[in-house]
């Protein structure tokens, strides 16, 4: 078959057909797979929230991050998470689907001056209460997010971080166990101000023995991602300050 592939008409038609074909394949695939993907994302959120409050399968193994398996996570989530709250315009309401709230959209609403919802999860493990707050911010390349679990003295009980596109081996290490574990025991309070926790270079405390300096040791080669984590924590703490003060007062 001899087709003159240099003609303009052919080029335009080819481009048109290609767009339609590729577009249909991707659209079809996306609609078929969406329910499965959404379910996976829901489980992941539950795993992350539980991870932050220390419900995970880490055990004595100090190296890696081990979540509750996906097939039991739903049950465990309803066992450990006693209340899911939504803060909206100063009002606090219960909502069992608060964990599905997309924090990114809510932060965009705040920027636009629109109404926004802030979710908080109250967990209970061995009689101890955990207040788990979602976070969202910017790393070097793309979004970073996570959860921070606090007790009523504003001491961090656990964190979970994740990212969309940080460099593997550098910024991507914020989701490594050794980085996340450093936050445990740090306070988000400096005196009485809600300052958050800084990811600091050169704080001369690589083992993180000092727990009252509002600092954790930074990752080598990941300055901007680290700064992003610091900023994310301090922004979140600022945002949730009115709510956190009510817990502290109790």
């Amino acid at each position, binding site marked *: 078959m001899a*087709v003159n*592939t*240099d003609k303009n008409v*052919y*080029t335009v038609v*080819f*481009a048109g057909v*290609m767009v339609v074909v*590729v577009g249909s*394949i*991707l659209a079809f*695939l*996306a609609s078929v*797979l969406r329910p*499965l*993907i959404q379910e*996976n994302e829901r*489980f*992941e959120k539950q795993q992350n929230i539980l991870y932050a409050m220390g419900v995970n399968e880490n055990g004595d193994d100090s*190296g890696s991050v081990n979540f509750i398996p*996906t097939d039991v996570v739903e049950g465990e989530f309803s066992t450990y998470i006693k209340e899911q709250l939504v803060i909206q315009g100063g009002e606090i309401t219960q909502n069992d689907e608060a964990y599905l709230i997309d924090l990114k959209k809510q932060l965009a609403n705040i920027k636009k001056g629109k109404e926004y919802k802030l979710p908080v999860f109250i967990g209970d493990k061995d009689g101890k209460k955990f207040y788990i707050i979602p976070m969202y911010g910017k790393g070097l390349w793309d979004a970073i997010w996570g959860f921070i679990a606090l007790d009523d003295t504003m001491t961090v009980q656990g964190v979970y971080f994740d*990212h*969309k*596109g*940080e*460099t*593997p*081996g*550098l910024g*991507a290490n914020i989701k490594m166990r050794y980085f996340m574990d450093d936050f445990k025991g740090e306070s988000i309070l400096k005196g009485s101000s809600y300052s958050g926790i800084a990811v600091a270079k050169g704080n001369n405390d*690589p*083992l993180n023995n000092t727990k009252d300096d509002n600092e954790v040791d930074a990752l*080598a*080669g990941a300055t901007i991602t680290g700064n992003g984590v610091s900023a994310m924590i301090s922004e979140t703490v600022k945002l949730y300050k009115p709510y956190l003060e009510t817990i502290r007062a109790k």
Partner: protein
Amino acid sequence: MALLSKKDTNLILDPLADNNPITIQVLGICSALAITAELNASLVMAISVMFVLGAGNVVISLMRNIIPSKIRIIVQLIVVATLVIIVDQVLKAFAYELSKTLAVFVGLIITNCIIMGRFEAFALANGPWRSFLDGIGNSLGYGIILIIVGFFRELLGSGTLFGIPVFGDPIAKTGLYSTGYENNGFMIIPPAALIVVGIIIWVQRSRNPALVEEN
């Protein structure tokens, strides 16, 4: 008839050494800098690129007679992007954990110049089977360099291999660290990859002077 003729075998073996995509063709340097701080990431990237380049080369080769030359680069880009997105979506649905690990590589694969380079230089002019072999060969050549660079950067930079400490604990000063040895933080940052790649190029060209370009 053997499965691979001598010519076919060369398609796979040449890129491993004398026609290596990174050290000789100087393609894919950018991703070699970005993700070789850890051996694990190098390995994952090498496998992902092998899949995409193998499949992409076949698709482009099948379409080679109908692609209008004026928009061939765009067509190549669409093919790579589509393949990567399909893999990403399928993994998200059926192997979510794995997709999380690979998510950061997706962007790096689409923009990897080895892939575009091989489409342009080989698949557009050759049949599907040979293009497939070329894809596998080049991604192996790419992978080998990635793994060599990743090995040295992780070993000297973090004192670990695949995340497992090999020199002892740098903070508690055990093992080799008790003698005063320190990890070289410079190896972690991207310029170190350039230096390691440079050394590989140097070694390779001193062993085979035929590879040295005339000025």
